[in-house]
């Protein structure tokens, strides 16, 4: 008797655990209940919490639970959630990740909602809404913000080197001698005995302050590391964007750019790659170990928070084509296809992409919202805090942005390009070795 109970219990347990894997249940069509929302940037959490509170006030039937996770955990937890049926109903999505999720049918298409609820796509900054239309022609996200890259420099160091804000804002660059950009970097580099990088007797093995900080090799995109330089040579990462299937890492224009950049290490103007493991680019800047950092506008707040360091911003240098360039990246909110509450989720996404929420985000002066009018409000909010963000907005005004390379198999491309770029930057292999990596990348698409 006892035994049969045991067997029955075990069978029931197995049946339970199996059914739990199934996940999907009938979806409700009414817009009510609790929905989960995920984001990764802790700096933006307060703004979105405010949006969620306002949203619930307007829609008392819907509660929004926000979860913030660090970038590294975010994507693995999300993937596991897709499989286990526990993924959030709505989440912040990234251009490098969404193509795969869309291809695997994990994202809810928003076309019907956009048409039905009359979302004005032209209220968003030009170029952003199109980024979220997948290869199948369906829309998988509503834009929430955008970012560009600029030079963050230590004002006191620039002053003592005799470089004015005007000079810093008008640097030029070319891959052969680095132009005035390299001259500024060299001049801002100081060794332990106080000699500058462009003076005779500079000791490149004992550098106290590097002219240019280094975050990492930038893998295949180099968003904040080198893309703003390579783009001014006319180089593009893929044959077309979005949805390119042929990569151009074998292009001499690209390899020359990387060779010049990696050469800064050899000259002693930029720290060695091996010293960046575990280190934070921003913290080293805050500690006065580098004079210029190239990074994205989402870090303005952090750079402004270092005590005793005054950070100033300059636009990226003009390249051989006589123009500046900056990668234009944007985030969006997507709805998970497996959500049990699609109606409420879509409503929340629409609210996130609305002027009401984006103005709240703008008022916190952390990022630039996707809606043009909100973005202008954010610039004013930054100004009110004493930060001049024209270095970042100039790219949008002058149309010098280029799009983040959106392609399928991004994780695999990264798996090949990261070690390949590391090898070049650590001086182990020449820039020409990237041709071999490029062949491997292109083989992925055959």
């Amino acid at each position, binding site marked *: 008797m006892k035994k049969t109970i045991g067997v029955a219990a075990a069978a029931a347990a197995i049946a339970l655990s199996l059914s739990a894997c199934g996940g999907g249940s009938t979806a409700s069509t009414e817009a009510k209940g609790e929905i989960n929302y995920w984001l990764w940037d802790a700096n933006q959490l307060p703004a979105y919490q405010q949006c969620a509170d306002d949203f619930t006030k307007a829609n008392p039937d819907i509660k929004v639970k926000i979860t913030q996770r660090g970038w590294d955990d975010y994507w693995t937890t999300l993937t596991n959630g897709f499989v286990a049926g526990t993924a959030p109903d709505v989440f912040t999505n990234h251009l490098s990740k969404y193509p795969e999720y869309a291809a695997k049918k994990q994202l809810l298409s928003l076309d019907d909602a956009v048409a039905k609820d009359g979302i004005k796509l032209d209220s968003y900054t030009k170029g952003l809404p199109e980024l979220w239309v997948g290869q199948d022609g369906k829309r998988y996200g509503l834009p929430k913000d955008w970012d560009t890259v600029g030079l963050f420099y230590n004002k006191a160091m620039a002053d003592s080197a005799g470089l004015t804000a005007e000079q810093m804002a008008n640097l030029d660059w070319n891959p052969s001698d680095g132009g005035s950009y390299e001259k500024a970097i060299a001049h801002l580099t100081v060794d332990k005995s106080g000699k500058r990088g462009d003076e005779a007797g500079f000791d490149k093995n004992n550098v106290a302050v590097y002219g240019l900080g280094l975050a990492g090799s930038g893998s295949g995109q180099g968003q904040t590391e080198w893309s703003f330089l390579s783009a001014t040579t006319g180089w593009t990462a893929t044959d077309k964007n979005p949805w390119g299937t042929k990569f151009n890492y074998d292009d001499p224009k690209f390899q020359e750019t990387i060779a010049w950049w990696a050469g800064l290490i050899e000259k002693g103007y930029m720290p060695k790659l091996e010293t960046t493991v*575990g280190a934070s680019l921003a913290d080293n800047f805050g500690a006065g170990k580098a004079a210029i950092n190239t990074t994205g506008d989402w870090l303005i707040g952090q750079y402004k928070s270092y005590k005793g360091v005054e950070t100033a911003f300059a636009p990226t240098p003009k390249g051989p084509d006589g123009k500046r360039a900056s990668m234009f990246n944007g985030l969006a909110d997507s709805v998970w296809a497996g959500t049990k509450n699609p109606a409420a989720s879509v409503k929340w996404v629409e609210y996130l992409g609305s002027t009401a929420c984006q103005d709240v985000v703008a008022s916190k002066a952390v990022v630039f919202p996707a809606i043009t009018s909100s973005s202008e409000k954010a610039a004013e909010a930054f100004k009110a805090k004493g930060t001049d963000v024209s270095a970042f907005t100039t790219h949008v005004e002058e149309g010098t942005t280029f799009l983040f390379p959106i392609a399928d198999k991004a994780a695999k491309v990264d798996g090949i390009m990261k070690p390949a770029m590391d090898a070049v930057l*650590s001086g182990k292999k020449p820039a020409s070795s990237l041709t071999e990596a490029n062949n491997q990348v292109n083989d992925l698409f055959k």
Partner: protein
Amino acid sequence: MTTLTKQQQNPAARARRPKAAQPARTSRLRRLGDLKMALLFIFPAMIGFVLFYLVPTIRGVYLSFTEYSILGDPTWIGIKNYTAMLGDELFWNAMGVTLQYVGLNIGFQTVIALGLALLMHRVAKSTFIRGALLLPFLVANVIVALLWFWMLDYQIGIVNEIINWMGLPRIAFFGSEQWAIPTIAAVNVWRHMGYTALLIFAGLQSIPNHVYEVASLDGASPTRTFWSITMPLLRPVMVLVLVVTVIGSFQVFDTVAVTTGGGPINASRVIQMYIYQKAFGESDFGYASALSVILFLILALVAFVQMKFLKGNESDLD
């Protein structure tokens, strides 16, 4: 985590026992009754074993013959994953890196642990000191890794501050290709040596004192006593310790994952890290399963060879 078992009876003595019992018929009947009872007792453990070990293992082996991106259904592709492995430079690199790690880790760990165990056995008899040796093992792996990652940091780490203060050039412990694996191995030696020493120490305590008395009566030197008495009598325990630590060492992952993440370039991409990246980074669960199967076979072989050639299940004490 592990249990120390030592069989002191020789097989002959064990085999003799049933004969002395009752006539064959009744004994067989009783054994059948025993079997039912035994199965009843084993049953709860069987559920766990089947659900959490057997089924996932079989599924893993099945997945290794498929292309599977976790979102969607697996497609059968035969032995393609295995043939791809042969030409996969990163796989061979991962095997090389793992072997280098295991060599450094086990070599240093075993020698240091043996030394510590001897000290615990002969010199440090206070429970406090014996307990203190185990302290690093009580700290979670990831915490240990982060702690050392921070202490060995190139710019702000205390170790590099000391090196700098002594007038030597700073070392990028986790950042340079030459140092990454030795550093990770050293961190794990630091964490595990106390625990390993404790296992060996237990083995030392099981060696009867009279053997040492006889040795000292015969005028054997301490070195001679060590090599001719301690080591041979310690062998079964040492084999167990080696089997367990070598298997654990092959599976190093957490220390790498929270520090170098496999870099610089490919210098610390150990096999478990590579499996993880393939599966969870690149959603290539089929290939990752094939890699896991290969690792499983290697570990089974290593354990078998160790048990076979070091005669781990026999003791010289009888």
